[in-house]
């Protein structure tokens, strides 16, 4: 009965600082990787199913997302496009969506003001609302939510917060393992499975992608609906097509282009 054709999504993430794509190793040591609009188009043409643009310094430096970057990136993109970083109000979300984004990802502001999730969902629909959760292991089976670009622990349990976010109106959860982020040692499957089996909305796994088999693992063992990576694509280490081919060979439904 359950559908087997819904594709597992491969999402390319552009971490943006001052209008340029960068990728940190565990949120630090930023390196420059190019122009967001050019990279988004390249990822789309290479077969990425979705693009996420995260203004990684927006929260920490109290800046708003660079709307011009969003507009420029969205102009030539005809696949789903999500934007996060520094979205603290319905007006912030509206500005990003008006610039051509399809979804907004909210992290620190959603923790500080959970009703913000509901307000954005009521105005734009839950499909436009992604709640981003940065989690770090506390025990082998529990993870704590961090905010402010991974710098501030909240004391909140990631599973409990995911369930609350769904009830508040989130349409998807973007779950980043801070333990794995930037390490290219594989996604955190126990974390991902814990969240993906606790909510009834899609969960995007993030943090740790390095090899094609990491994607297979997070779909099979982590029960993820989508997997997100950044540096693994930017530096041409593994093409999206190669990853999807390996997934298809293993029986995972994926969208193959061309």
């Amino acid at each position, binding site marked *: 009965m*359950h*559908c087997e054709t819904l594709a597992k999504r491969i999402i390319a993430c552009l971490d943006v600082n001052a209008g340029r794509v960068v990728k940190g190793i565990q949120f630090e040591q930023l390196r420059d990787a190019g122009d967001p609009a050019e990279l988004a188009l390249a990822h789309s043409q290479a077969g990425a199913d979705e693009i996420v643009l995260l203004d990684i310094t927006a929260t920490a430096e109290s800046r708003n997302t660079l709307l011009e970057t969003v507009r420029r990136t*969205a102009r030539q993109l005809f696949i*789903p496009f999500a934007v996060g970083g520094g979205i603290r109000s319905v007006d912030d979300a509206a500005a990003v969506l008006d610039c051509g984004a399809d979804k907004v990802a909210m992290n620190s502001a959603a923790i500080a003001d959970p009703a913000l999730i509901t307000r954005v969902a009521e105005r734009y629909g839950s*499909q*436009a609302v992604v709640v981003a959760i940065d989690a770090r292991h506390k025990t082998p089976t529990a993870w704590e939510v961090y905010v402010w670009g991974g710098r501030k622990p909240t004391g909140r349990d990631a599973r409990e917060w995911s369930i609350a976010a769904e009830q508040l109106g989130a349409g998807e959860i973007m779950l980043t393992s801070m333990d794995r982020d930037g390490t290219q040692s594989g996604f955190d499957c126990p974390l991902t499975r814990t969240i993906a089996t606790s909510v*009834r*909305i*899609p969960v995007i796994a993030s943090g740790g992608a390095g090899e094609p088999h990491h994607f297979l693992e997070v779909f099979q063992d982590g029960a993820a*609906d989508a997997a997100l990576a950044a540096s693994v694509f930017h530096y041409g280490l593994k093409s999206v097509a190669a990853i999807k081919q390996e997934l298809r060979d293993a029986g995972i439904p994926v969208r193959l282009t061309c």
Partner: protein
Amino acid sequence: MIAIVDYGAGNLPSVVKALQYLGKECIVTNNPDIVGQADKWIIPGVGNFKATAPLANGRLGAVLRGAIAPDGRPLLGICLGLQWMFEGSTEAPEFHGLGAFNGLCTRFSERVKSPHVGWDSIKIDGRSRLLAGISSGAYVYFTHSYRAPVCCGTIATCTYEEPFTAVVERANLFGVQFHPEKSGDVGMQILENFCAL
């Protein structure tokens, strides 16, 4: 000129952007006179079925009901726009749809994750002007919690829990449950097909 009917329910910028990329002239409006003068209509939309109320009321409603006439203008409903072309939805039973296609839209059950979000494949069954050049099995981008039943106008289905209408087509009436403006090359081909009618 294509009129994109603005009834306050979402995703208009991305539809406009896609048409501009294809080099098609379009105008976003809720003015019944401008809608009435356009060659083609697109009804986009995401969100709750009750948001479709402006499409049924007043002069705008009267103009849009003209789409059902034998000489009606080409109309493309996208997502909520497709659902509105049916009789109604259990999401907001007090509101009526256009009724061009039979049946009520209903929610996915608790047995599957909902909303149905992501790229899924469509099974094309029958000849279609809208889907010219598109192969059965093509992947398109969906995001919805309610779905339209399979009816006599259904020309493509998607199966999530059970088959539902992915595309309807009859004479000048067209509807897609997925988002062509977000479905890459496949979606752009569908929009181009509609523009070329």
